[in-house]
């Protein structure tokens, strides 16, 4: 019998090694898998490469992981925010490397990894600093930049409901990067509000089919109210 459920976030992340590459879902706090990030902080793996749209907000979640000096490099589109003080400090101190990626290119590089695409040409960033040193090509009337997929060892994401096969449905804009990250990582770990019986999720509305998911942890109501 297939059962992808894990008893705790700690158990689901026990094998994360130093130097691992980890995608973390969420756009700001919406969809951020806070319980998994807390477990990752407790687990102790260091020297991590993180992929997220942002670089942490305030003092919890990804910001806390950065504050704990556990992140060697981050790939993101929008690190600088009013409350990204832990990243800002680490960046200015030279403790963290930043690969800044336009948001759509970040999404497509993740999607490409999950879809087995070797590389792709995008018009985004042509003629800008973020395309410097990259291969370009004129196709038809437009200029494009060659971009490569982003693979990862783990994806930590949040969904609303799952079943034991790992089928997932999300809630509102908390979906954001989660479905593509689930497909791009070798081991996708999901925190969910509820685990339901097999067959209880309408197959017409399952967003992430279980083939992309390895581990599911029920965290209860994981909504974290802003202080």
């Amino acid at each position, binding site marked *: 019998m297939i059962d992808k459920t894990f008893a705790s976030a700690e158990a689901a992340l026990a094998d994360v090694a130093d130097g691992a590459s980890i995608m973390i879902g969420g756009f*700001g706090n919406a969809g951020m898998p806070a319980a998994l990030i807390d477990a990752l902080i407790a687990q102790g793996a260091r020297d991590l490469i993180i992929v997220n749209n942002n670089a942490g907000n305030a003092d919890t979640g990804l910001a806390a992981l950065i504050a704990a000096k556990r992140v060697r490099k981050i790939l993101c589109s929008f690190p600088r925010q009013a409350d990204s003080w832990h*990243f800002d400090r680490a960046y200015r101190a030279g403790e963290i490397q930043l690969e800044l990626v*336009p948001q*759509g*290119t970040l999404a*497509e590089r993740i999607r490409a990894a999950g879809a087995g695409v070797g590389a792709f040409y995008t018009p*985004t960033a042509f003629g800008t600093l973020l395309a410097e040193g990259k291969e370009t090509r004129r196709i038809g009337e437009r200029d494009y930049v060659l971009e490569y997929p982003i693979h990862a060892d783990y994806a930590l994401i949040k969904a609303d409901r799952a079943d034991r096969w790992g089928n997932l449905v999300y809630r509102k*804009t908390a979906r954001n990067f989660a479905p*593509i990250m689930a497909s791009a990582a070798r081991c996708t770990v999901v925190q969910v509000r509820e685990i339901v019986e097999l067959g209880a999720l309408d197959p017409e509305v399952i967003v992430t089919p279980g083939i992309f998911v390895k581990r599911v942890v029920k965290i209860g109501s994981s909504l974290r109210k802003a202080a």
Partner: protein
Amino acid sequence: MKKLDRNQMAARVARDIAEGSYVNLGIGLPTLVADHLPKGREIILHSENGVLGVGPKPAAGREDEDLINAGKEPVTLLAGGAYFHHADSFAMIRGRHLDFAVLGAFQVSVAGDLANWHTGGADAIPAVGGAMDLAMGAKKVLVMMEHLTKKGESKIVERCSYPLTGARCVNRIYTDLAVIDVKPDGLHVVETVEGLSFEELQRLSGVPLKRLLTAA
């Protein structure tokens, strides 16, 4: 002359958004356009984080932390709205499905180059978000900005001194002084605010402007 305030600029942009348009409003000043869309016109707002049919701000106490816009502010969803993941969201942008992107800017060049993401300063932490995708992907890119910097320098320039967001991507510029179209043969002034002559706008702008031959 009567400079437009932020709301008047937003209302001016809103007037040009046609019924049935799919529109992305950038963070900051462009977000104000949503408050001025003419009542009775059905216009669908897109947000990069996976929403079509963004509705108004929720009432106090009705915020849902799973329902936010690209500026990470709480929003609502209109009837008919839809959620989708990030790769689909940017397929809509990059795939030329959006009719308009309204973006803020530090500078726009005579050729329609846009600079709005990075000052290039040594201590500045760069952040680009979806700006480069929107600049290259939307069918029409509308820029909304003050005409002059605080020091009185024109933000419409011969060549952008700040790092580019996109080359030759801006279609129309809305400032607190004028509406200007970017065309292959240069900048065409569509209208100026009350009490501002073409000649005075030309003097303030410091780049060659053309008078649109037909009345605005």
